[in-house]
């Protein structure tokens, strides 16, 4: 089963990725896509994601492999940005293709929860010209813990 994970150091085009992925998985009955983007508003001027090269991409690859073992998928793709992003720009894209939609929804959800709380990224945002590091939220850990007690 095909799975791929990549770290994008510059802006990427989710629409083009979705088109490419969909064409590559013509046998799938359903494809779920999740796009995380820098929200516009709340005074955020920029968002930066830092990573640690020896751990970050290998961790994303391991997550993709764990996700495809857990659900019956035809394909999975994870793209995550590193670097400085502006409001409206994509941060992360998860694509899951499956014969049946529930596997695709669950796989994308699982991958996102683990990208947020277990992958090696550190996020900061710039408001009024001042950068501030973002701490993980309790909700992120609660989202992650759901998978420990379900199949």
């Amino acid at each position, binding site marked *: 089963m095909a799975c791929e994970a990549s770290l994008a150091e510059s802006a990427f085009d989710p629409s083009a990725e979705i088109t490419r992925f969909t064409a590559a998985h013509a046998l799938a009955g359903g494809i779920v896509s999740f796009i995380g983007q820098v929200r516009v508003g709340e005074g955020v001027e920029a968002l930066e994601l830092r990573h640690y*090269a020896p751990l970050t991409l290998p961790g994303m690859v391991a997550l993709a492999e764990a996700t495809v073992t857990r659900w019956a998928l035809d394909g999975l793709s994870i793209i995550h940005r590193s670097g400085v992003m502006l409001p409206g720009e994509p941060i992360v894209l998860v694509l899951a293709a499956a014969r049946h939609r529930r596997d695709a929804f669950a796989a994308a959800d699982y991958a996102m929860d683990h990208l947020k709380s277990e992958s090696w990224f550190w996020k900061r945002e710039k408001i009024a010209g001042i950068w501030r590091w973002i701490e993980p939220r309790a909700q992120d850990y609660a989202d992650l813990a759901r998978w420990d007690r379900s199949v």
Partner: protein
Amino acid sequence: MPLRLVFLGRLEDAAGMGATALDLPAPATLPEVLARLPAALAAALADPRLRLAVNGALLAADAKPLLADGDELAFLPPVSGG
């Protein structure tokens, strides 16, 4: 022996830099590394929520690494991706 220290996330602000070099007698323990750093930074690095990686390999939460010549020690605060 030379060591390289890498500070991720908010630790970069605490250190005032993303990475630094340190020279210590071999082999070196984590307390020996911390003793060579400014007190405020050493305090920030004593946060029990931090994880450590040596040469890109993540250590167990309770590991007590013995650092060798040229090792890269990374201090990893809680992550926030997505």
